[in-house]
């Protein structure tokens, strides 16, 4: 844990070394998020209530989404690049160190722009999410579970590159898909799509479940969120660990 924190701190220093670019990118991303808030406000102004969703609830979802993306893709930015790193042989540096290679890789790089999300999400929650101490705790809990599911899903998908080769395209598509699906109220989708969002592309656990938890807390749902987080964390760690045996270090040989 201390190693992970030390690595993350160094990654921060690296992002911070270009200070002007840092604030510029954070600002651009925050502005980008404001545009989405405008979209949802305009949408629900016309549509009214949509299967239990209104402006209020959708902004809560958006606050969770940006917090999750800020943490899982901003702080742990390599989570979505793992397949690419594997294909390019960039695990070598991590494997040469006496530490857990997955933890090291995940904390190795911070994505400055997405830190804008991390700043935006909690602020949006405070402004539009009716924060009470209890709700704030549930918000943090939900966002953490969502982050673990997102990162776990991306790591597992990226690790497939260890078995199947390629350049990590599947991880990129999965990344796009889970993020888009997680951006919209889960209840607009029909039964089959919903099932898909609880399994193959677990977007429901990234934002849907946490949002409904903050709106109205229920223990079974909380346990469900926790269980999903545990499952995806385990799936990611296992796929990666087993796959390491087949790591080919981007050897020239495999590109023949």
């Amino acid at each position: 844990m201390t190693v992970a924190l030390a690595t993350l701190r160094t990654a921060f220093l690296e992002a911070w070394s270009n200070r002007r670019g840092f604030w510029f990118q954070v600002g651009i991303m925050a502005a980008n998020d404001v545009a989405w808030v405008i979209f949802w406000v305009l949408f629900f102004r016309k549509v009214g209530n949509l299967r239990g969703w209104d402006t209020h609830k959708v902004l809560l979802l958006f606050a969770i989404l940006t917090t999750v993306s800020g943490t899982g893709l901003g702080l742990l930015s390599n989570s979505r690049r793992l397949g690419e790193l594997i294909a390019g042989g960039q695990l070598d540096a991590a494997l040469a160190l006496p530490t857990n290679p997955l933890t090291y890789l995940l904390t190795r790089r911070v994505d400055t722009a997405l830190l804008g999300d991390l700043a935006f999400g909690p602020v949006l929650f405070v402004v539009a999410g009716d924060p009470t101490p209890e709700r704030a705790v549930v918000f943090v809990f939900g966002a953490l579970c969502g982050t673990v599911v997102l990162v776990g899903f991306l790591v597992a998908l990226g690790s497939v590159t260890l078995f199947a080769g390629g350049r990590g395209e599947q991880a990129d598509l999965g990344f796009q898909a889970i993020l888009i699906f997680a951006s919209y109220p889960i209840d607009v989708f029909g039964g089959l799509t919903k099932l898909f969002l609880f399994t193959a592309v677990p977007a429901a656990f990234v934002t849907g479940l946490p949002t409904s938890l903050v709106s109205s807390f229920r223990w079974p749902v909380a346990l469900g969120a926790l269980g999903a987080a545990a499952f995806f964390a385990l799936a990611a760690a296992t796929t990666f660990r087993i796959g390491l045996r087949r790591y080919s270090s981007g050897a020239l040989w495999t590109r023949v």
Partner: protein
Amino acid sequence: MNALAAQALISARRALHQRGELAVRVAFYAIILVIFSALWSAAAGANGGSISGYDAHSLLWYVAAAEGSVIATKPRMIESIGWDISSGAIVTEMLRPASVVGLRLAAELGEALVRLVCSLAVGGVIVWLYVGQPPSAAGIALFVPASFLAVGCNLAAQHAFAGAAFWLRDARSTWFLYQKLVFLLGGMLLPLEFLPTALADVARALPFASMAYVPARLASGHVEPWLLLVQAAWLAGLLACAGGVFWAGERRLEVVGG
């Protein structure tokens, strides 16, 4: 003109050959379409079948057309043009006996039209299966040239926007903002009729509407042929703008040195 046509043709061929990339792009578009189909049919259903004059049927055709017209251009294009300019890579292009921005636009247009046609073919099938045939045959007939003009406007505007990199170092990330302007004021995410009246009027007067709203408006069954004239006017204006920005930028590079 011949050089430009040849460039467009080469790029179109290249886009066709990179099947993996094309497939990913079209798949991405299809996913968005599935989501928006769900979102808008639920929205229409919750409001007695129609919002701001659009029913579920026309809304879905609107979304397919708007998304399709925008998604045909490369994401992050402003960033990559900006990169070519600020890294000096563009200087080699200035040695050719043809307009830098002209060749670039032709190349992008060739690629974009391939993606446009493929995306719309897939999108058309999805929406057709979902809600049935397009609301109006005349509207679709008008939509075809409108989608081409929309892509042209979008490309010209992005080049004009990215040309800022001749003067500004950090201009690259502005593609995010540009994209959001197209999303909201261009009517890509939702029809302009959904905006507050005053804002909708402003949006209609801006070039972004020509990139998404116009083709989508036509495809959703509104036979309003004069919109094509608006697009054509914007296309001419934006092309002049891109040409002017690059002309001035290139002069500046020649003076300051790459």
